[in-house]
C-alpha cells in the first residue's frame, strides 16, 4: 500500500488518491462505496492576498461599523 507523502493529512490523501483509498485502507469488504471525485473546497481558502485598494475597501467598511457600534470613528 502506498503511504501518504510527507505532510499529507488523511483528507489530503483521499483527495490525491480518490475514494478508492477508503476501501483499500479501511475495509476491503465495505458493501457500499462512495463515488464521485473528492474535492478540496478551494472556495473556502482561508488566506487571501489583497491589493491595497481591496484592503482599503474593507478598512473603510470596518471603520463604518466601528462608528455604528462604538459611536466613534
Amino acid at each position, binding site marked *: 500500500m502506498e503511504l501518504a507523502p510527507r505532510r499529507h493529512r488523511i483528507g489530503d490523501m483521499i483527495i490525491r488518491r480518490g475514494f478508492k483509498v477508503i476501501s483499500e485502507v479501511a475495509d476491503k469488504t465495505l458493501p457500499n462505496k462512495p463515488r464521485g471525485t473528492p474535492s478540496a473546497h478551494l472556495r473556502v481558502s482561508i488566506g487571501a492576498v489583497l491589493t491595497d485598494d481591496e484592503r482599503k475597501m474593507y478598512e473603510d467598511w470596518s471603520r463604518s461599523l466601528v462608528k455604528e*457600534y462604538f459611536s466613534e470613528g
Partner: protein
Amino acid sequence: MSLAITPEPKDRMNKRIPVPFSTQLPEIIRNNYGKWIDRKFHGNGIIEHISETGDRIFTIKVGLPPNSRLSVDTLEKFVDIADKYGLGVVRATRGMNLEFITDSLDKALKIKEEVEKLGFPVGGWGRSLWHITSCTAYLTCTTAVVDAPSITQVLYNYLKPYFTGEIELPAKLMIFVAGCPNICGGTLAGDIVIVGHYGQAPKPDPERIKFCLPASAEALKKVTPDVAAVCPVGAIKLFGKPDGSVGIEVDERKCIACSRCKNVCDYFDWDPNKIGVAIFAGGKTSNTGTGPRLPYRVVPWLPVNPPEYREVVAAVRKIIDVWRSEAKPGERLGDYIDRIGIDEFMSKLGVPRTRHNRCEEASWNFGVRQFITYM
C-alpha cells in the same frame, strides 16, 4: 455516598493505561450508565439529567477565560467548590468551558453562585452562545499570525449576555478564533470563525532563506524541499543560480496566503500592516437543519488593532445582529443564510464584495455529504 473514583496514590503510580473508564466515574453516574432518559433546563447553564432509576444529577456549565488559561490558584478554588458542593469531579469541555456535576438543584445553584462570585459566567446552553474557542497563539505557538486569545477576550466582553442567556439568540452559536490558517483551536465549520492570516504573499528573507533550501542546484535536482512542496497552488518556484546556489521566487498572483510555507520555514518576511483576520459565517458540524457544512468567507480581511480589536468585534456583532433580527426560532446562522440567500445576507451586512468573498453557493457542503450517494 462513596466517592472512591481514583485509586490510592500508591496504586495510581502503578496503574496502566488504558484504565477502565468506569473506575473514574462518580458512583451515581456509574450506576446510571446508559439509563439517562430525560433532561430539564434550570435557567441557562444548569441541566438536570434524569435516570430511569429515579436518580438525578445536575451539570453546571461555566465559561472559562480564553484558551482555558487558569492560574493554579483559580483551579484550586474550583476544586474546593467541586468538593464542597459537587461530586468531586469537573469536566473540561471541547468548547473551553468547565462543567461541575452535583446531585441536587440546591447545590447546583450554590455552585453557580460561588463561580459567579469568582467572576466566571454560567450559561452556554440552548439558544445562546455556547463558547468562543481559541488557540494558544503566541503563548506557545510558532506560527501564530494574530493573538487569538486576546481577540476572544474582547469578544467575550461584548458577547457575555449571549452566553449567560440575558439576551436570547435564535439558535446555538459557536464561535472559533484561530491565530493562523492552521486553525488548531477549533474548526472552520463553526457559525462564526475568525482566522488570522498574513493577507500578502511571503517575502523570502534574502540572507536566511538558504537554511530552508538545498545546499546546491545539483541537490535541487534530486529533491523538492518542503518549502516548495507544501504550496497548494505552486506559487513558490525554486531554481538553480549560475553560481550553483538555489534561488527562490514567490508568485504573488498565484499565492493565496495560506502560510503553509511558513509552517516549514521561518525565514519569510511579512509587512505587519497587511496582516489581518478573515471572518467566516454559516458553518456547522451538527446534522441539524441542512446538515454539516463549511462556512462562507464573508469578510476576507479586517485590520487587527489590539488591544480592543474594535473592527473585529463590530463585524461579529453586525453578523449576530442581522441573524438575530430575522432568523426563525431554532434557525442556525447557516440555515438562515441559506433561506435568504448569501447575496441578500451580504447586502444586509453591507460588506464590499470582491473576488475574495464572492461566496458561490455551489458545493458548499462537506465532503462527507458525498457519502450519501452510495453506489
